[in-house]
């Protein structure tokens, strides 16, 4: 309740401050991205021809976010806004409307085959499509096409960068598959805080179970927690994993009750700070698969 009210106030302020400004001095194209993983992808493809503003920064939670006036100002100056889509950024429409953004909105997940899942008897779309490298390639291609459309002069650069990025993903995909293949099949089942790894799981053959739903906004019920504890005990699930964007207390409690060990921190919805273990998209996969391998291979 308070959150809504504050958001509304913030946006009014934002609208007042976000008077469109003239072209800036440097000739880089200004673009905006909704959250850190997408921002990094745009940086990889655009490199030094674009100036990327990212709203939800490293370790931030993209499901729930309160935009600031600075965000609205940055957005109003951008030519393209990259969003993930699939229902991830519920707060974005209001920011878009209030900022006076005149550019083009590009949904990076266009063309991805969305995962539907049933949660509390409702069918919802899982937004975490970037957790599969095959989808990451689609994101990269969409970003490349959008950048070329807005800045045809940079076509060659964008194509070369995108190719390099996609090649990197192909190599990483082989690593991930090899690492999963080394894990004993009965151990390929783990617990995380919220349902962020559905695409990862179906792409690489692992099963992820979470007490919170696909959005971090929902609160777990006693039944959810009880089910997971029963499942961990019955199926001897070896480890639970924390995520960088969520509160760890509930998982700590589940781990201590079941005797499952805490396998480490996975990066799900946000990168780490640039000097951290998951500073960019490919490092995020490297870190996640290393963390999973260490805990599950044994």
């Amino acid at each position, binding site marked *: 309740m308070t959150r809504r009210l504050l958001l509304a106030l913030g946006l009014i302020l934002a609208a007042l401050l976000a008077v469109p400004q003239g072209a800036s001095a440097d000739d880089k194209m200004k673009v905006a991205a909704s959250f850190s993983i997408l921002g990094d992808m745009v940086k990889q493809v655009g490199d030094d021809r674009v100036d990327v503003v990212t709203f939800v920064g490293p370790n931030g939670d993209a499901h729930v976010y309160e935009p*600031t006036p600075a965000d609205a100002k940055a957005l109003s100056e951008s030519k393209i806004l990259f969003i993930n889509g699939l229902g991830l950024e519920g707060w974005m429409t209001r920011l878009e409307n209030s900022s006076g953004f005149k550019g083009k909105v590009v949904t990076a997940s266009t063309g991805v085959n969305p995962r539907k899942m049933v949660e509390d008897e409702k069918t919802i779309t899982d937004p975490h499509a970037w957790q599969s490298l095959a989808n990451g390639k689609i994101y990269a291609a969409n970003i490349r096409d959008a950048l070329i459309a807005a800045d045809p002069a940079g076509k060659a650069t964008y194509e070369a960068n995108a190719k390099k990025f996609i090649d990197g993903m192909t190599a990483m995909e082989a690593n991930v598959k090899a690492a999963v293949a080394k894990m004993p099949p009965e151990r390929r089942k783990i617990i995380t805080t919220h349902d962020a790894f559905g695409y990862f799981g179906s792409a690489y053959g692992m099963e992820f179970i979470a007490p919170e739903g696909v959005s971090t906004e929902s609160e777990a019920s006693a*039944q959810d927690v*009880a089910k997971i504890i029963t499942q961990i005990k019955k199926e001897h699930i070896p480890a639970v994993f924390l995520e960088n964007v969520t509160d760890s207390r509930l998982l700590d409690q589940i781990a201590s009750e079941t005797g499952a060990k805490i396998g480490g921190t996975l990066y799900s919805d946000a990168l780490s700070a640039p000097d951290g273990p998951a500073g960019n998209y490919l490092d995020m996969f490297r870190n996640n698969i290393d963390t999973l391998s260490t805990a599950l291979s044994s």
Partner: protein
Amino acid sequence: MIHYLIDPFMDFVFMRRALVGCLALSLSAPPIGVFLMLRRMSLMGDAMSHAILPGAAIGYLLAGLSLFAMSLGGFAAGIAVALLAGLVARSTVLREDASLAAFYLCSLALGVLIVSVRGNSIDLLHVLFGTVLALDDHAILLIGAIATVSTAALAIIYRPLVLECFDPQFLRSVSRWSSPTHFMFLVLVVMNLIGGFQALGTLMVVGIMLLPAITARFWAQDISGLVVVSVLAAFVASLIGLLLSYYANVPTSPAIILMAGVFYLLSMLVGWQGGLLWQLMPRKHLEA
């Protein structure tokens, strides 16, 4: 039948912990709520629960998700707001509710500001929303300690507090205990809010403090009766709320508070101290 009530707690440690935490809270918070209600300060609980936010936020900034730091910070902020409001009320023309409103709003704004400046990481408001299913040893100890101290302290200041409720002028004329009692009481309010926000979150903790107390008003006439009924109502609401969350798959803290709310509505209808149904019945001819 009975095993439906007991099984969840037999099978799961986290359910037992949640129950222990809620029961401890139900023992200490509702009596405080009774006095808040009697002193016509019911809404003050809500105000104070917002006032602790900046302290908790500063604790979080300095020490991360540390239970101790956040509780200590929240406690300090709550006491500061209560004291300042009391001081202003006693030394200027402003009444206590107005000065409290002014201070708690500033405090809330400061809290949100602090959260937002650093709030890019795990959302503090989200953390403050309570995790009754994730009470670890420290949280249980903290809630237990607060419940113990609060109940004991309430017993000590009980007499002056009752007088302060009903005849503050008289208390002031016969004793110097008026101001210290008032201050002690405010400390207890803040302490219980701090204990509750570990379990239920800042938004919900006021519910377990006030709803059972207000419910009790429809059943009991004297203060000891009010206290007993309110504690019982809070016990039962906690138990049913937890079971509801277990069987009906709904989030826990709202389930507990809503159960307390249901008790309130029922009591308002059928409670024998001024419940609506009893008022509809024709009275015996005493009022003529």
